[in-house]
């Protein structure tokens, strides 16, 4: 049985004046443990709203229909208490902007140990040890010292690695990554993509990756769902989607980026640092 099975998910927003806006219409997908699903589309195509609906993070004027079964329970119909037990524990999320998703007033330690103290009732010392381990796992050098620092003392790439470490503290079974590399430089993006790939391989964690960058999708995803105006217009495994995209919108997304002419792959020396 799949880890997550989403059936006919729809999201619409009520408006004070005028008819409701349909953001997501009848989207279905399934995700197995250890697999990565890429949801791609332009802004406004409903890709983030689908993920927010799963986690119950939509504003009060949103209406959600359909079902999303995770571990035998329907995530769309959970009460707040059960949902809070799931969120940040079995299911974690990484947002696009690493600065706004970290609290500027709290040290990295406070923020990293919070999920453990909430969900696991860990002792402070134990939580701190886990947090340092988590920082080392996302390759933050000098983690034992850095853990006492504040978010503004980190660079953008490091902050994003901290939010990934934070999401992974409880070893979730599903990670939702909402444009995790969009705000970062290409060199840092390459580091984060490699890190995410390693983590899904090593821990068997499933991942939903929301992005508009077909290159990132190619590097990470097993399955791809292409969204356009709230609808899923193409759903295929990554290899066949890139080999033969069928929907015109998929093709235009692929062609939207100017092709980068680069030196032939062989000429790039492979002895670079890992």
């Amino acid at each position, binding site marked *: 049985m799949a880890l997550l099975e989403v059936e006919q998910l729809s999201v619409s927003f009520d408006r004070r004046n005028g008819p409701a806006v349909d953001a997501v219409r009848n989207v279905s997908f399934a995700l197995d443990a250890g697999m990565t699903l890429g949801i791609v589309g332009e802004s406004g195509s409903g890709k983030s709203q689908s993920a927010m609906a799963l986690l119950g993070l939509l504003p009060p004027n949103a209406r959600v229909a359909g079902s999303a079964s995770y571990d035998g329970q329907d995530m769309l119909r959970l009460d707040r208490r059960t949902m809070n037990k799931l969120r940040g524990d079995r299911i974690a999320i990484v947002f696009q902007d690493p600065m706004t998703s970290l609290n500027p007033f709290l040290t990295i330690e406070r923020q990293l140990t919070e999920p453990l103290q909430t969900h696991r009732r860990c002792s402070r010392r134990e939580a701190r040890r886990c947090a340092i381990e988590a920082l080392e796992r996302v390759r933050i050098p000098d983690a034992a010292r850095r853990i006492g620092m504040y978010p503004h003392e980190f*660079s953008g790439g490091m902050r994003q690695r901290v939010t990934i470490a934070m999401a992974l503290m409880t070893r979730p079974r599903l990670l939702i990554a909402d444009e995790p590399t969009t705000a970062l430089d290409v060199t840092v993006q390459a580091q984060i993509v490699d890190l995410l790939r390693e983590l899904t391989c090593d821990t068997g964690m499933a991942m939903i990756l929301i992005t508009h960058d077909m290159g990132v999708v190619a590097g990470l995803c097993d399955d791809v769902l292409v969204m356009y105006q709230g609808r899923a217009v193409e759903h295929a495994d990554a290899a066949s989607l890139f080999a033969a995209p069928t929907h015109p919108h998929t093709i235009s997304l692929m062609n939207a980026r100017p092709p980068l002419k680069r030196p032939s792959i062989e000429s790039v020396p492979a002895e670079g640092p890992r």
Partner: protein
Amino acid sequence: MNARENSALELEFGSNAPPLLSIRDLKVHFPVRRREGPWSIGLHKKTSLRAVDGLSFDLRRGEVIGIVGESGCGKSTLARAIVGLAPITSGSVCWRGHETVDSSHRKPLQMRRLRGEAQLIFQDPLASLDPRMTIERIVTEPLRTHRPGMTRTEMRVRARMLLERVGLGAHDLSRYPHEFSGGQCQRIGIARALIAEPKLLICDEPVSALDVSIQAQVMGLLRELQRELSLSMLFVSHDLAVVQAISTRVLVMYLGRAMEYGDCAALYGSPEHPYTRALLSAVPIADPALERSRARVLLKGDLPSPIDPPTGCVFRTRCPQAQAACAHTAPPLEERGERHTLVACFEAGAT
């Protein structure tokens, strides 16, 4: 630009006409105060943040120079310094053969001339338009400053023409910025930049804030306009593919210094500098099999602080080919190998 257009320009201006814009050893250092001890007030040490640290290049008519590098490498500061929006510490900016800033750091007449003939396009399309002005006022503002003799009707006619050229309509003249999408706002920004018929267009990340599909449209428009008006451009972006699509020459910056500079095709086809190679190899390829199997040059860690840059070659702390000698002297930017790009690396061209 092809060779025929090039020779036509040379006929028009003479092959040794001064370049439109000429930058020599430009430095922009910002004074900063650094705390020495923890929380002590008296122990501030005055130092400087070297945003741009000794850059030189020439921009000729009809040429597009792309400036790439990671965030924090000083590429935007360079663009701003050229038009006087950032203070120049030393070095010179010459506009059509005349200095724009004199030794006393006052802005002489030449700066006003440059500002009339050089226009900027900014990254954030909405923030660069005054929310309380109509599109007509926004687009005609350069004319009111730089063409004082023009009548309002003439201005309106020109504004309408330009709006139509960038894909908007005459009826948009009376509307306000908030009524437009990001892509449309950037088109308005382009119309405003072009209305006073500039010779140089400085684009500071013009498509970075836009959605991918909109990016393609705006880039297409910029390329068309560049050819049509044979505009000279400085195109600043962190996006290597976008820079490649529009530039004739490319300058790769790292921590305020030039790492590699040369013809666009040569630089992308066979990059000599390890940093250029790392940048190019970091861009993902939209092909799952290729993307997962290829060898990449991954850079360790983050950009060092421009307040306290490494000695010698600034890139050596992250360079896969760093030698002991790199810590002592900074490699000069010079021609190495036979590719005719200028490279600042001791190792480049050696093999």
